[in-house]
């Protein structure tokens, strides 16, 4: 019993230490964004890696999510004779929730793991120490460009995902559900309120930052050689995915209280 208590205390202490270090990293990165030196070239590089590099996976995810949503909801809507409203359902689902969350989850898998593995390898091979020895602050050189790229690219990728999602839904509505294009697209527009669009655009800013900062935090705290890098990669994906869902809930709650 005593052993269990000690284990629980250690577990809580370790958890609090992780949270403390994560918050410290976030503040250091925020401070570094607004002060010199600023590595603009690295920001552009990361926008390419995080943004353009993730385009294929986001396109595929968005398209097939929209398509399968149309298939499934078409069957349900049929029961009420409401098949023409399929566009409304797809646009509301994609823009408000599925687009931001699925894009963020895809980025957590692709970008979060990549950042954790890259920075983790740099830690275990002493490249981070070498950077510091050469007079470069790793937060400014490695963390800030990635955070800015995540902050900028996650909303853009979400818009892309939303768009191809609705396109996927349109193709299914047209070919499988026999809903005409005009009916589908007018239903898409009718189903949206401007507040929904704001929510769908604002949320990815938060989610992008969460994914990247978690990847950086876990990567920079890697220890234990190549095995540690593997562990860090897994931890980054798990933590980022769970946090995406948690942050999504709280930001949604906040935005609802603001907009509605």
């Amino acid at each position, binding site marked *: 019993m005593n052993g269990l208590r000690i284990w629980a205390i250690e577990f809580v202490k370790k958890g609090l230490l992780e949270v403390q270090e994560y918050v410290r990293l976030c503040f250091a990165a925020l401070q570094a964004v607004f002060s010199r030196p600023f590595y603009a070239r690295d920001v552009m590089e990361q926008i390419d890696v995080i943004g353009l590099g993730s385009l294929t996976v986001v396109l595929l995810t968005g398209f097939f999510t929209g398509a399968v949503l149309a298939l499934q909801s078409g069957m349900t809507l049929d029961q009420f004779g409401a098949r023409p409203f399929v566009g409304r359902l797809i646009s509301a689902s994609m823009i408000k929730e599925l687009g931001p969350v699925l894009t963020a989850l895809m980025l957590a898998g692709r970008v979060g793991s990549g950042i954790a593995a890259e920075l983790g390898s740099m830690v275990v091979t002493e490249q981070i120490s070498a950077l510091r020895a050469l007079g*470069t602050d790793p937060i400014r050189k490695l963390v800030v460009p990635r955070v800015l790229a995540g902050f900028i690219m996650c909303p853009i990728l979400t818009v892309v995902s939303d768009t191809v999602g609705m396109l996927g839904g349109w193709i299914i509505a047209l070919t499988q559900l026999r809903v005409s294009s005009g009916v589908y697209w007018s239903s898409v527009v009718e189903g949206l309120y401007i507040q929904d669009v704001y929510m769908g655009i604002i949320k990815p800013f938060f989610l992008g930052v969460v994914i990247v900062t978690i990847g950086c935090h876990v990567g920079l705290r890697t220890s234990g050689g190549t095995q540690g890098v593997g562990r860090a990669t897994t931890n980054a994906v798990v933590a980022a995915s769970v946090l995406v869902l948690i942050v999504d809930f709280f930001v949604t709650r906040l935005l609802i209280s603001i907009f509605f």
Partner: protein
Amino acid sequence: MRAKSLAEFGLPIELAEAHAPVVLFDSVNLSFDEKVILRDVTFSVRAGHTKIFLGASGAGKSTILKLMLGLLKPDSGTIWVLGHRVDLMDEAQLMRVRHHMGMVFQEGALFDSLTVGENVGYKLYEETQMDLEDVRQRVDEVLGFVGLTQYIDRLPAALSGGQRRRVAIARAMAAKPILLLYDEATTGLDPMTAMTVDAEIVKVRDLEPATSILVTHQLRDAFYVATHQAQRTAGGEIQLVEAGKQKVDEADFVMIREGRVYFEGTASELRQSQDPYLLKFLS
């Protein structure tokens, strides 16, 4: 077995003076959780001299270099580097001190996404206002110095272990540091390759010139660096010869044992020691 105190060095505590040593550790202690890494470590390094830290693996040698760079902070004691109290400085202040220092890490720690040329010119390109053409010239110069000009566009993964260490030396010396730190620069290399790395260390020390601090457990390398010197011939070629007595005496050996300074002295004092631990280490 002498672990000198500050008084024995005869030095003032205020070290921002011309005659001051480039590095001074005064009663430095460091522990990680329960494990004591360094206990009451005191030593100094004078400008232009060579300090060689010997000791078994895990004795705390590499930690000393990390403390000098400010990569770690001591639990107690004071550390002066180039006239600055690095143990009290924050990361931004340390960057200015590190600007005058170079470090060669155990496995080279080259940036694997950058080419050899980009690695070597990294500091000049990213952290100075130097003109790009001047950076290229300096990169060519230092790569020529370590004999690796032809590898300038290769990635570190395409180099052998010895070549990687030599590139690491080139990177460390590119910004003309006052103080160069070598952390096990020859570990894991075959004797012939290790000798070429030792030769580069001697060349950088004598021809650039920089105060050198070496950490190693390879006695052969330590004695080679202590007992050789580099000079240019009339034709401009670099020659490695046996060092004169003065040069040999400028190389100080420090034996670290379980986090303590166990021995400090010259190469000949180390060789003549009858201490059982030192005899065992030297055998």
